[in-house]
């Protein structure tokens, strides 16, 4: 399959997933408890807080992913973690990060982050050579730490809103801004074109994606188990973690100005920071 066909297939699949679905029923079957009118409807909650107008369809995708994870991905990840020693898993991770350097560099530049673009460029050069093709993160020892960037973050720095939240099959949590960024990043990624005109390399991009997913899942088996066990609504928990995490990534870890408002016990306040202190020693 050519890269163009793959892109069209991905877009067509996404279009189907974007079709609004009917929200799940609020009233559990068989309930005989007295009805209490909620102050805020589910729709209000989702619209105002979660930005999830297609929650019904998203939850269906989430449930399917949970099944796929249980019967396929998690068992594979468990074996991967058991078979590969830690240093080998680190090597895989380093290799994957290095392969993604062109995309990170492009987004550093698009965000006007000259220093970070320089860091990415130097990291790529050092790790691709001294680091044996990226297997070892030698650049970190030269005070050039890894950072991540993608076009979704770039759009965020340009002021684009996140758009409605979506949960995609296999891909997981996203939103309109981040999915757009995902598609553009594939266009920025040289590996997308590696198999053009050479069918022998057709499975290189797919292989990288599969290995990325397995490695990511393997490194977070215990964490996700813990989150699921402690969540009264795992779907909502993942949604919140994703949205907050992406907002933090767009800020590059800078302090947020939209703080939980404990005074009213309600939403988010937007105080004006008075000052920033360097830290007590």
């Amino acid at each position, binding site marked *: 399959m050519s890269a163009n066909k793959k892109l069209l297939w991905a877009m067509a699949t996404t279009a189907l997933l974007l079709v609004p679905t009917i929200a799940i029923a609020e009233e559990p079957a068989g309930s005989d408890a007295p009805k209490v009118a909620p102050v805020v409807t589910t729709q209000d909650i989702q619209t105002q807080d979660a930005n999830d107008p297609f929650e019904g369809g998203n939850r269906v995708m989430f449930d399917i992913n949970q099944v796929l994870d249980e019967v396929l991905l998690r068992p594979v990840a468990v074996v991967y973690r058991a078979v590969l020693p830690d240093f080998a898993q680190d090597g895989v991770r380093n290799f994957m990060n290095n392969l993604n350097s062109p995309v990170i560099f492009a987004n550093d530049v698009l965000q006007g982050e000259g220093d970070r673009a320089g860091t990415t460029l130097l990291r790529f050069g050092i790790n691709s050579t001294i680091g044996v093709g990226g297997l070892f993160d030698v650049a970190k020892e030269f005070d050039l730490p890894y950072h991540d960037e993608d076009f979704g973050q770039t759009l965020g720095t340009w002021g684009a809103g996140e758009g409605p939240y979506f949960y995609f099959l296999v891909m997981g949590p*996203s939103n309109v801004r981040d999915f757009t960024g995902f598609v553009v990043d594939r266009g920025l990624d040289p590996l997308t074109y590696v198999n053009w005109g050479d069918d022998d390399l057709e499975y290189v991009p797919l292989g990288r994606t599969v290995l990325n997913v397995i490695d990511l899942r393997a490194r977070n088996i215990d964490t996700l188990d813990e989150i699921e066990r402690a969540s009264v609504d795992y779907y909502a928990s993942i949604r919140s973690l994703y949205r907050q995490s992406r907002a933090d990534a767009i800020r590059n870890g800078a302090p947020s100005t939209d703080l939980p408002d404990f005074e009213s016990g309600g939403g988010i306040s937007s105080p004006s920071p008075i000052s920033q202190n360097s830290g007590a020693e």
Partner: protein
Amino acid sequence: MSGLSGLVRRSVLVAGLGILSFTSAQPAASGPDAEAFTQNLINQGVAILRETGDPARRTKFRAFIFQYADVERTAIFTLGNYKRSASEAEIADFVTAFREFATATYESRLAQYKNQSLKVTGSVDNRPGDVTVNTVVVDRSAREPLRIAFRLLGGSSAYKFVDVQVEGIWLSIEQKEQFGSFLGQNNGRLPRLTTDLNARTQRILNGMR
């Protein structure tokens, strides 16, 4: 995938810390004073956690959390507007369940404690009596340092730790969205959330035995 990768990395201590809120009758302070106050509390907590040979470690740490926790304020915040449709008795039951749930979650993670520590790196004065103290987790085995921030609120007589942020994720917001979603699917009935929390707490405790 990069977003998902960031998500799971940031989730590591979200799951571990659960809800941590502290209160203290310390004099009001800002900036450096708040940082020193935070570092002092961290040192106390870490000292207890490092007593790995002490069979009473769990009990001591539980007492430490209870001594400084303002769970009620955090619990009520997580209810958002749903608290208006609940009775005082229902809210009181929920606060109790939330306290046990948060403590059990932390106790569960305590068993996996690996000599980590936190170092204060700075603070932000959000407004008078409202300070965010930033720290990093000192852990030699970690690929990257983890950022954890504590939110302090206080008037002229006391500072209170009311929230914890892990890698940019405020735990109170995550809890609020979970509970709001659950209540939305259960017609706003708070007792159902309380019952679920109690059952979940019991499962966590059973898993530790």
